[in-house]
């Protein structure tokens, strides 16, 4: 419990540093925010001055920094330059499709990755190992746009089994496979090497000597000990996913945070970029915390109180 509180409190300085960095970046980027907001429209000085006052840009830097922090704490990260909507609202709108794709991709990735990794790990250097690792290599190597287009061509255009840009759960299949295939590659390789290492440990020999069935040895004794590295990787990968899978979103014409981030950067929509960076930071902090907690669940010998 103390550990948990300490971790939560530890988030504060990280967020503070991120917000400060984001604020500094906003300050040093050339170009008057008012000009950006007016999108090059020739506006009179009177209009510009009114906009500056509205955005609080007429105040000294330190006052603006203070009020930025105060607003950020309250969850108000400002309005988009382009759409004039609150940026938090814009992010929330894109959260659902992003979570859907993350969940779908994660499911495919973990299932495929675990199967390939375990199969390869328990029969090292067999033909099973070679073929599983070949599939894994293809998964990590193929770019998402190629995988996506190929899936569209085969299952969407030619066989017409699933919709390409439609609605509902069926439209989630191809994008999930595209994302999952990529995830599974790295995961399978990591699980394989992790299992190989564990299988040579003394306690595995002991378990076998006790006469336990092969699958019990693998699933109960080996897997549990082999899980720590893959779980760490999955934390990072899930973070990547829920901050937006920009290429997959683009190929399958899905809304999502990846598209939002891409467009905000291309349009120099600074408040939106800022908010997305803050969101991504938050996501990674939370995921790291979850992964650390999972270590303790997977291997009770890891005492969280000592981990810090």
């Amino acid at each position: 419990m103390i550990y948990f509180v300490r971790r939560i409190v530890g988030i504060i300085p990280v967020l503070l540093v991120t917000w400060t960095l984001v604020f500094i970046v906003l300050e040093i980027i050339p170009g008057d925010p008012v000009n950006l907001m007016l999108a090059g429209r020739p506006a009179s000085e009177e209009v510009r001055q009114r906009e500056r006052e509205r955005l609080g840009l007429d105040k000294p830097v330190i006052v603006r920094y203070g009020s930025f922090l105060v607003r950020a704490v309250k969850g108000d990260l400002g309005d988009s330059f382009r759409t004039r909507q609150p940026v938090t609202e814009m992010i929330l709108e894109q959260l659902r499709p992003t979570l859907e794709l993350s969940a779908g991709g994660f499911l495919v990735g973990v299932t495929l990755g675990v199967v390939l990794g375990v199969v390869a790990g328990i029969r090292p250097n067999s033909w099973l190992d070679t073929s599983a690792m070949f599939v894994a290599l293809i998964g990590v190597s193929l770019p998402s746009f190629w995988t996506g287009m190929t899936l569209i061509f085969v299952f969407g255009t030619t066989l017409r089994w699933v919709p390409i840009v439609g609605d509902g759960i069926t439209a989630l299949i191809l994008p999930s496979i595209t994302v999952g295939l990529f995830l599974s590659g790295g995961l399978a390789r990591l699980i394989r090497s992790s299992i190989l290492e564990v299988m040579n440990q003394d306690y595995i020999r002991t378990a076998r000597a006790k006469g336990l069935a092969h699958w019990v040895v693998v699933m109960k004794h080996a897997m549990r000990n082999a899980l720590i590295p893959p779980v760490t990787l999955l934390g990072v990968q899930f973070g990547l996913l829920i901050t937006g899978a920009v290429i997959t979103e683009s190929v399958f014409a899905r809304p999502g945070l990846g598209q939002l981030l891409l467009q905000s950067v291309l349009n120099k929509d600074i408040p939106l970029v800022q908010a997305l960076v803050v969101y991504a930071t938050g996501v990674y902090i939370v995921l790291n915390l979850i992964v650390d907690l999972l270590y303790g669940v997977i291997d009770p010998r890891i005492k969280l109180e000592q981990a810090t």
Partner: protein
Amino acid sequence: MRKLLLLTAAVGLFAGTALAQGNDIEIVFAEDRVDHATFDPRVTQSRHEEQVITQVFDQLLAADENGTIHPGLATEWQVSEDGLSFTFQLRDDVTFHDGTPFNAEAVKFTFDSIVDPDLGSQGAVDIIGPYASTEVLGEHEVRVTFSRPYGAALGAFAESELSIVSPTAVESLGNDGFAQAPVGTGPFKFIEWEKGKQVVLERNDDYNWAPGYMNHQGPSNVSRAVVRFIPDASTRVAALEAGEVQVSELVPALDMRRLSSGDEFDTIVGNAAGLPFGALFNTSKGPFADKAVRQAFMHAIDRPRLAENLFFGFADPAFGPISSSTPSYWAGNDAYYGFDLDKAGELLESSGWKLGDDGVRYKDGEPLSIYFPSLLEPDTAVAVQADVKRAGFDVRVENVLKARQDELIFANDYDMLVIRWVSNDPGVLSIPFHSRNIVEPGKFKFNWARYADDGLDKLLEDAESAATPDDRDKLYGAIQKQVMDEGIFLPIHNQVQTIAHSSDLTGFRLAAGQWQLRFYEVTRTN
């Protein structure tokens, strides 16, 4: 007995309705952008946002796909003798989608709000020109007055930016709310905007005021139209072929050729009005400071062949600083800079550029090298590079991103840059050619030729305030002639809107400017 008759009539009516619904069409249109910001016609400056706006709104006057003006929400109009005032008689049978009546007050409200700085208009505020005021003369009569003669006025009243908006909706939603849920008088109602995904439109069942030039009257046969945002061109084509969308814009030329050769799809090509795809020569420094070198460069390019090779016949070569579908296009453009390598050689010789052993021309030991950073259409840049090599130009093409191009523009570090601009108004010529639009530190503008001439500036200003359409044509003609004589702009090919649609459907019509597609008249092919 009477009851029975009524009942029969009612059943008959129901059957009729059911039949009508059987003919109802639902279409999905694949659009290549995802980053729409507003659907308020008074605010937008994006031709992509106008794809939706075109379906939802009407204007005082209606322009067909060739830019010819017809009566719209106004049935008649008179111009005052001094050319400053336009009096419109309005239709009295029109209602907005929110049920409120369209009247003179709505016209006044719309135009007054456009010039109000609080709205933050980006397009309409320019199109409305020297607007002074609107006077309500009666429930269905208004007079719009300008502060100086405005030759472009009639065309402007037909532009989608000057669509008439529902004052009630603007007042209840606020400007920012209206941008998300616009209310007009058009053939389709705006139902829903799923950000980054699609806009859903539904038929306006009360619609009975279509402009007379259209082939359909009354409510549209299209009961529901979805504008689906699909940024990837291959995905747009795949979704079209799988039948998930019925019509797609910006279809790649190769797919246009394939789709048009079968029976399942038909194609439509729009020649967009405005600046064609072309290049501005940097006249401030380097080899292109010399007019003869610029002219030689243009003579060295075989534009018809280049357009054919790159677009398989789906884009026409361009010959003037505005495309031929733009109002006030000057026919004289077509005679300039035909493909003539001998002429190019002579011009370069006369300027002292002599052919070296390596096929490149030299002057005072310096090679004739051209730096061409290219943001758009890398294939076109390379084709140009190959053509002019035969005349002894050594062109260095560099594919750049927008940020890099901006940097080069501010640093004045380029010999030529590509530009294109969709616009219905020849006034677009001021953007790259008026000297006030030469880039200054901190101010991003588009006169990348860095060409400054008082005579041309004066012509551009006079053309904007020309009193009659004839004067306007003459002035814009003179402007185009000077741009071509001076050789500051290389027209390459017309910007094309390439549309493919299921051949089950017919009646798609391009809006004026030939970019947006109207869904109103769509019907099933028999």
